[in-house]
């Protein structure tokens, strides 16, 4: 019964990582929920506070940390604290492998979801909103299900399961690592499609200027702040090009209207 309840909670919290307000899956809240389900709310809260601060100190700009991979980490940290009697800091350290597993699975789904993207494109061709909804929600349910199954299997023997997962990580972790790298690289395909559809061939300068600005801004600012700064520059550049084109168009029109007199300048 305990296993089913934990798996159900993991299922719902895994979905919360991507939808609604995205606040329930935060370690402080998720661990409290897991603590309640394991009849030890106080330990759940203590582990949650520890994990929350641990995650805040992580460098989220690294590619392998997926922002939707922390639920398993919270779940197993609380399990280890309650079942194996570890304190909050020990449990946070021992369960760290599940942050890697969770991130790896999330990245694996980022690649696997390309199948559903194809379904969405087919739905767009036929203007089928229902099919589009299925392509949007089914991947989320499948991903949450995988998380829930791992939690269910792990609940009965948290300590042995952690050791088993660690040995799996030593042997096959590189596959999850590979999918994390692929997940980080895949946006390049989306960017290339956008560049093609924007007929960027005649404006390579704008592309390289954007890249250079990002390199400069990214070296002194956080990546998010650098993106916001680059967006402001893009807006400014776009407005400048708009006014320049407008001016050129109006002066060309004026030239055209004067054309009749152009031969009589003398």
């Amino acid at each position, binding site marked *: 019964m305990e296993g089913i309840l934990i798996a159900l909670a993991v299922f719902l919290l895994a979905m919360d990582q*991507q*939808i609604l307000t995205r*606040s329930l899956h935060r370690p*402080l809240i998720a661990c409290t929920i897991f603590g309640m389900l394991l009849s030890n709310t106080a330990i759940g809260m*203590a582990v*949650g*506070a520890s994990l929350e601060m641990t995650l805040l100190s992580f460098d989220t700009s690294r*590619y*392998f940390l997926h*922002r939707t991979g922390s639920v398993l980490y919270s779940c197993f940290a609380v399990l280890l604290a309650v079942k194996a009697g570890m304190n909050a800091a020990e449990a946070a350290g021992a369960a760290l492998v599940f942050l*890697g597993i969770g991130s790896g699975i999330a990245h694996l789904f*980022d*690649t696997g*979801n*390309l199948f559903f*993207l194809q379904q*969405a494109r087919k739905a*767009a*061709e036929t203007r089928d*909103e229902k099919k*589009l*909804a299925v392509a*949007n*929600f*089914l*991947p989320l349910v499948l991903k949450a299900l995988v998380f829930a199954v791992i939690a269910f299997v792990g609940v009965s023997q948290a300590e042995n399961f952690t050791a088993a997962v660690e040995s799996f*990580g030593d042997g096959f*972790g*590189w*596959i*999850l*690592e590979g999918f994390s*790298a692929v997940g*980080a690289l*895949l*946006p390049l395909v*989306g960017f290339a499609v*956008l*560049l093609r*559809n*924007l007929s*960027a061939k005649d404006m390579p300068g704008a592309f390289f*200027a*954007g890249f250079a600005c990002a*390199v400069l801004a*990214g070296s002194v600012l956080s*990546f*998010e702040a650098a*993106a*916001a700064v*680059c*967006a402001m520059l*893009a*807006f400014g*550049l776009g407005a400048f*090009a*708009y006014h320049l*084109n*407008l001016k050129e*168009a109006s002066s060309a029109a004026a030239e055209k209207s004067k054309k009749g007199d152009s031969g009589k300048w003398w």
Partner: protein
Amino acid sequence: MVVGTGKYTNTNEAFPLDRKTLNQIFVRSFFADASHNGETASSAGWCWALMPGLKQIHKNEEDLALSMGHELEYVSAASPMSTLAMGVTLALEQQKCDLETIRSARTVASAAADSFGTALFEYVVIPVTAVGCCALASAGSILGVLLYFAVVAVLSVLLRYAMLYYGYSKGTRAAESLCRHKEALKQGARMAGIFMLGAMTFLFVRGLQPDMYLQSNYQSISFADGLKKVLPGIVPLGLLGIIWHMLTKKNRSLLMCVLLLLAVGMAGALLGLFGGFFSSPLPLPWLNL
């Protein structure tokens, strides 16, 4: 024809969206990132969220398919502020602007809103709230947990709602005056969009820096440091160049491009070049340093 490319048949401005439709889009925006994928991020959910508005704007079925198709291009809707970009996009759709104008404006607006929203939550709201609430929770008070949930959830809902209406009203006002000069707007928007894509190539494919340490008799040399000195972000830039070449010059399918990246990612992980959670099982010399 590629899905989402072409021109709208009906270019007459549509009626403004009513409050009911915008509210529907607001509710759906909570599910916009449900099917996050590597290639186009939140595009399927983004398109699904905009559907009530798109259906009202495009009565012509071909135009609706075209609009749905181009809304499936790369767009990120992960942060609560992404509704700002939704509002701007809907305003431009309503004016029946050129597709290049809409996709450029969407790219810039969504990148800006997503980055700003993420930074606001990840670096300000969550840490500030977490510090106080974690202290309360560590002391055994459930109030810390409840307060943490309430602050993050309420702010997220309010931002989503306000940004959608702000983006739509400001976007409509701007588009009404700018769309009178469609060609100039298209050129300006394209320049902004392409500039932003250049920036995103460096910023959104960040953190993936292949690394290996080459040992000499005197010291070890980092391959990543060397690459950084040549040009930071040279790996994503080079890969983008190859994919662009495959798509436009060689006319390869998207699947081929994905398979290429799959091969690069897997080979890099097996050779232990990326340095993540798990290390390579191979006894490679640069891993033992």
